[in-house]
């Protein structure tokens, strides 16, 4: 079985460079966006979670890392693993979810040499900003459209957002690589969108199943806003 890693979106060092004006703008632009996103996320997470921020965000980042290690079969006879952006956004909110994803990418690049250090900005933009932040707001829009407290809204919203977030993240990644001139734009766009169309299906199914499990056992983790959940896990709110 071929292991089709979702980290195909996880660019290594050297993929983006600054030798042409467009490539330089892409490289600097993604770094600027990523740093801005991290700064905003830190501010919002600190305001929402206060002194719970460090332990909760830390273990949730470890959760995403651990969840990415679990493989499952995807169509075309390959296996993939969860990217987790939409799941993190749905369960923790857009700011905490994006922060958790950014921390995961930082740790993977600096401590485990997985994904490049110089392209960390682009990786955070693709999978944190587009994948998690964008995924969350798409999920929220669909949920609001169908009915905020209806389970079909949550399920449909999460599944669609899961698929779209993976495909959109791969589109952004392909555009960055193609416009930088590393690989032919048409080739990388076709390959990335084709494969991530299938990978996104796996992401949607797993996100949906994981949320269904959480809903059955702890519905407040989905229906309550993160700031109202204090003390839930310690049993104070049943």
């Amino acid at each position, binding site marked *: 079985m071929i292991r089709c890693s979702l*980290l*195909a979106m996880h660019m*290594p*060092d*050297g*993929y983006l*460079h600054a*030798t042409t004006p467009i490539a330089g703008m892409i490289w600097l632009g993604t770094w600027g966006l990523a740093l801005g996103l*991290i700064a905003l996320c830190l501010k919002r997470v600190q305001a929402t979670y*206060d*002194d*719970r*921020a*460090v*332990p*909760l*965000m*830390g*273990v*949730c*980042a*470890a*959760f995403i*890392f*651990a*969840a990415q*290690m*679990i*493989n*499952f*079969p995807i169509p075309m006879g390959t296996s993939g693993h*969860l990217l987790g952006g939409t*799941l993190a956004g749905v*369960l923790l909110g857009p700011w905490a979810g994006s*922060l958790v994803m950014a*921390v995961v990418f930082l*740790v993977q690049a*600096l*401590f485990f*040499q*997985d994904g*490049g*250090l*110089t*392209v960390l900005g682009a990786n955070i933009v693709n999978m944190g900003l587009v994948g998690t932040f964008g995924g969350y707001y798409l999920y929220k829009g669909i949920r609001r459209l169908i009915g905020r407290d209806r389970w079909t809204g949550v399920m449909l919203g999460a599944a669609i957002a899961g698929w779209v977030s993976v495909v959109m993240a791969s589109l952004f990644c392909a555009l960055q690589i193609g416009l930088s001139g*590393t*690989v*032919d734009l048409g*080739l990388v766009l076709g390959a990335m969108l084709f494969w991530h169309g299938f990978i996104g299906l796996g992401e949607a*199914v*797993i*996100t*949906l*199943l994981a*949320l269904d499990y959480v809903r059955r*056992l*702890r519905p407040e*983790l989905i229906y309550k806003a993160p700031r109202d959940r204090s003390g839930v*896990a*310690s049993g104070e709110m049943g």
Partner: protein
Amino acid sequence: MILPGASPISTWIPFRRERGAQPWMRVLCATIAVFAIALAPQQQGWQLTIIGLGLLLLCGLSSVSALHILRRLTVELGFGLMLVLGTLFREQGDLLWQWSGLKIYQGGLLLFCSLASKVLLSLIALNLLTLTTSQVELLQALKQLKIPPLLVAIVGSMLRYLAVLLEEAQTLQRAAQSRNLLLSRLVHRRVVGMMIGSLFIRTYDRGDRIHQAMLSRGYSGLVAEKIPIRWTKPDIGLITYTIGVSLVSMGVEKVL
């Protein structure tokens, strides 16, 4: 073999666990090196060769065994090369090789070699850093380099509980395997979904328990901590060496 403290030269050897450059300087220099490698124009053979030689010299002088680095590189490079493999089939220049629908052109081969060298050299630089610097030292270094304390604290918290969460995920997988739940593809996906849901609930509860434990030990939020930066001989040696090698490599590329 140079032992720490054996000669005055050893005090200038930067990448040693004992008496080497300080962790913050190692992080800074590894970052400079990786940026110099990654941002080098494509197909700049001499520039990358000289940086590579500079890194090899550092590896030789460091306290890390070559076998250890090679073992890690074998795994990491495999993933890296898989990702840059697509560039090999770029249609540019003379056709060098053809088999069935696969064609390799001169331009594609050069680009692949350039990207593969960049991936390899970046991995060597970062491996050298992580093999000579513990996680605690790396976190301390990030604080000294003015990374936001909340971000460093979250990274520290993640690293602390990573092994626990990974073990929990493996336990869940083992339990599902022992019940033959992962045989059918359809059931496999359902079980993985439930596993991840269950792992999240355990994680969230654990986060709250950790928070309670921290409060009981008197934790009341992050305390601003100022760690002064002071320069030592190995620090000056390492930064001079890093910038020197980067500049020389660029100069040689221009001359040749």
